[in-house]
């Protein structure tokens, strides 16, 4: 399999604080990778560097054989990378349908088009309808995003992320704050919706991680402690010391 996303010695400092201390990570096309690690390990910072929110202090990020570190978020998104946010980022005064349509429009490159009415773009309508069904939001079609329940907002967040048709998807704690049943349901949703795509996901729920991921990357204090299959990571003594053991204690408490 070919490498689609690669980080080479990526470092990030905020002032004197080192957040990431040299990350090397190579993800193949079609792989599902879970990024785990304790709070403050630098998981979201890593997402921000890859998606263009910040530039790394040192190192390189490559997407589909193009160097993307330091590029603007919209330039990276156009190369086929989409991300979701830990704190839901939707268009609050637009309806569910309009929210998803925005993402579809941009994915198809219609964002600057000002000479046709949006209702005439049949492909956009069809894709938006399909996306609504896929995320099970079709019953809330005309509900304003701000009026949705938390779980539905998370589904909308996922729908917006997927709607542009990107083939590299970054999900930042998609199931955070959800109940057990909601999480299971959502996991299925992510599985089917990202079929055949490359997925990098920050996740705290170990059930989700082991059920979904082909590989697990463990980030501790800004360093990559392990990057391997779930079985290998589970057996890794260093990981158990640093993170998993600790986590299972706190999760069962």
């Amino acid at each position, binding site marked *: 399999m070919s490498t689609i996303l690669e980080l080479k010695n990526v470092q990030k400092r905020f002032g004197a604080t080192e957040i990431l201390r040299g990350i090397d990570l190579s993800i193949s096309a079609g792989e599902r990778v879970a990024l785990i690690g304790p709070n403050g390990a630098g998981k979201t910072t890593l997402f921000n560097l890859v998606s263009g929110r910040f530039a790394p202090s040192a190192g390189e990020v490559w997407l589909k054989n193009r160097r993307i570190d330091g590029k603007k978020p*919209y330039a990276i998104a156009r190369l086929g990378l*989409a991300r979701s*946010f830990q704190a839901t*980022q*939707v268009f609050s005064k637009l309806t569910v349908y*309009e929210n998803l349509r925005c993402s579809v429009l941009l*994915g198809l490159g219609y964002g600057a088009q000002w000479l*046709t*009415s949006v209702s005439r773009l049949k492909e956009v309508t069809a894709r938006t309808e399909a996306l609504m069904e896929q995320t099970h939001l079709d019953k809330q079609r005309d509900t304003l995003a701000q009026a949705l329940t938390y779980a539905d907002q998370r589904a909308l967040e996922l729908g917006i992320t997927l709607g542009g048709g990107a083939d590299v998807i970054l999900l930042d704690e998609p199931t955070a704050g959800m109940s057990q049943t909601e999480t299971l349901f959502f996991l299925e949703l992510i599985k089917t919706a990202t079929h055949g795509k490359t997925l990098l996901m920050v996740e705290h729920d170990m059930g989700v991680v082991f059920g979904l991921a082909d590989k697990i990357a463990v980030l501790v204090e800004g360093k990559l402690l392990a990057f391997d299959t779930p079985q290998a990571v589970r057996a890794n003594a260093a990981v158990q010391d640093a993170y998993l053991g600790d986590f299972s204690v706190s999760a069962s408490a």
Partner: protein
Amino acid sequence: MNAAPWIAVVAGVVLAPELLNSTWALTLLSQIGIATIACLSFNLLLGQGGMLSFGHATYTGLGAYGAIHTLNAARAAGVDFPVSLIPLAGGVSGLVAASVLGFLSSRRGGTALAMVTLGLAELVFSVALMGFAFFGGESGIAGNRVTESAPWGVTFASPVEMYYLIAAYALLSAVALYALTTTPWGKMLNAVRDNAMRVEFLGTNPQTIRYRAFLFSAFFAGISGGLAALLFERVTPDALGLERSASLVLFTYLGGIQSFIGPIVGAVLMVFANVGLSSLTPAWLLYVGLAFVFGVMFAPQGLTGLLQTAMAQPWAFYVRHSVILLALLVSLGVALLGVTALVEMAYQLQLEASLGPNVAFGFFGDWGAFQLHINRWQDWAAAAAVAISGGWFFLRLRHALIVRLGAKA
């Protein structure tokens, strides 16, 4: 989209001069048309794009200057230029101005944008006052819209012809601006309003979306300015002033920024305030300010939003709550009466030397006429008592209504 309201509007606009055959009414309607284009173009920024521009008069004003200079240049060169196209020269002037000023304004959203537009507007206005020949100093630039050539016998010498020109531009601009909101770009503009950061991560630079909004908005603002230049045949630096910009913010907001027709309602209010209210009382600007504060506090969705909410209620709602609604209206009227009395007395106090100590009130001619004396403390106390009690009852009744509606839901 339902075509019936649009047909009704067009019919009303076309037939208006037949029904109101007075020059005064025609000038009023012409000004409403001009203000409509200006407010609609402003709301493309505020309502659709979430961009609070404090400098929209920069574009209407520069459009007016561009139009009047084009008119004068064509006349001086002896070119046979159709006067009906002069407003387009205003539109192009607005567009050119926005290509630079709008670029600077649209780099950032939110508060930064508001500050930049304010600064640029102040800059342009002070340049206009510096005495460059282009702006014509205090007396401005005069022009003459009536030319020798008369295509189809139209010379724009009569107010009716001018009215129809303005009406045509207003209708076309409204349709064009509405159409823009239905395009993919228009939808992106809404998305940028709600969450610019999200748009950026979906593959479009929000700055380019905002910049384009400035270009469109300034083009139509320029058309509005160009029409004003033709109507009044004079453009002064006041056209670029902050007062004009503030007025656009105020009345568009009062009309309602969340619906497309809100700014049109705002435009009507603006012209009635500028022309009607200002002839009734010297304190008219104070009333406009009070109305704005009141609107922001009690009807943030604007007059249009208020009417839409009212119209969405079934008849049963009005029957069930008839007493409280009526009391609410009466208390509002009483409060307004008291406030008006206080404001008028305060103004009279300031201008006593020239106007004398009496403030005359009259409703429907002589019916209900009475006088207040600014030298009698009893009159001040009475006015204050009326204002306070009316206001108190209004707030209590409003609260009671909200509680009642909330309990039902």
